[in-house]
């Protein structure tokens, strides 16, 4: 029997799941890259990034843009974020596996 309480509610929201997936694939991503890949508004994206940062799943990096030399914000997944993401995917797979016709 699957323990549904194991599902991380922070990651379970679709937008945050998308952000976590991108950051788990490769890091770091700039704010603009995330925005263009996910087609989200500035406000929406920043809200979800704040939630994930507060939870300790994502960290902010202050970098300098190569071309202009201006400060730039990038985001990367933390160790805790990676573990939480892997656990979340595992539960999803278990749900699908269990409901598959035998």
């Amino acid at each position, binding site marked *: 029997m699957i323990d*549904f*309480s*194991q*599902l991380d*509610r922070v990651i*379970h929201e*679709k937008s945050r*799941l*998308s952000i976590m*997936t*991108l950051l*788990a*694939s*490769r890091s770091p991503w700039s704010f603009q890259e995330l925005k263009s*890949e996910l087609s989200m508004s500035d406000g929406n994206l920043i809200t979800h990034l704040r939630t994930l*940062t*507060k*939870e*300790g799943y994502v*960290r*902010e*990096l*202050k*970098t*300098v843009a*190569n071309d202009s030399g201006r*400060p730039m914000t990038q985001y990367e997944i*933390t160790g*805790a974020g990676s573990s939480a993401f892997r656990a979340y*995917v595992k539960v*999803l*797979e278990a*749900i*699908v596996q269990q*409901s598959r016709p035998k």
Partner: protein
Amino acid sequence: MAASDLPHDTALEHLRIIRTLMERASIYRAVSATAALCGGVIGLAVAAWGIMRPPSPQVFLAAWIGVLCVSGVANLFLLMRESQEKGQPFITDGLRMALRAVVPPLLTGGVLGVSLIAFRQQMELAALVWILCYGLALQGTVSFAPRSIIHLARAFLIAGQVLTVLWLWKGWPGMVSPPVALASLYMGLTFGLFHIIYGVAVFLSQPRELVASSSPR
């Protein structure tokens, strides 16, 4: 939403999102910047020699096959070393995707170019075919390649198309003869110069990280 209400379809939908985004996010660099730089320098040297002391078509072909072999082996070696340093396997999904994208146009260009030189002594046309097919091979990787490769692909395709039109129109540039010297010029401008610019640009664009601030849980 209560986690216990999670239906099978939602789980499937979330897995689909994860898979799609992960595929889109995966980046694979099929051309090592260092190998491109080395290949570019060798290519430029061979092209300069071909312009100043135009060789026979057979020697021209052998010289460029040599450049291809040296650059190709260097590229494989450097990609392998990079994988080892990162503790990753050399044969990855990224490499498979890259091979699927680049092998057909490269083979086509190779067969066409070699045949044009061997059977028709058409060095300029062979060079143009190589430039265009190499551009198409790189273009095939754009969905998972870094931006620098995309720029390189565009540079090869645009240069190949412009040079083809100019060559068919006016045999440009008329002052460069015999044909093998003109073919060397085409090769030097693209395979030599573009790879050097690409290698330098990649090295210059390494991110400079200033501060890393984290929010511990």
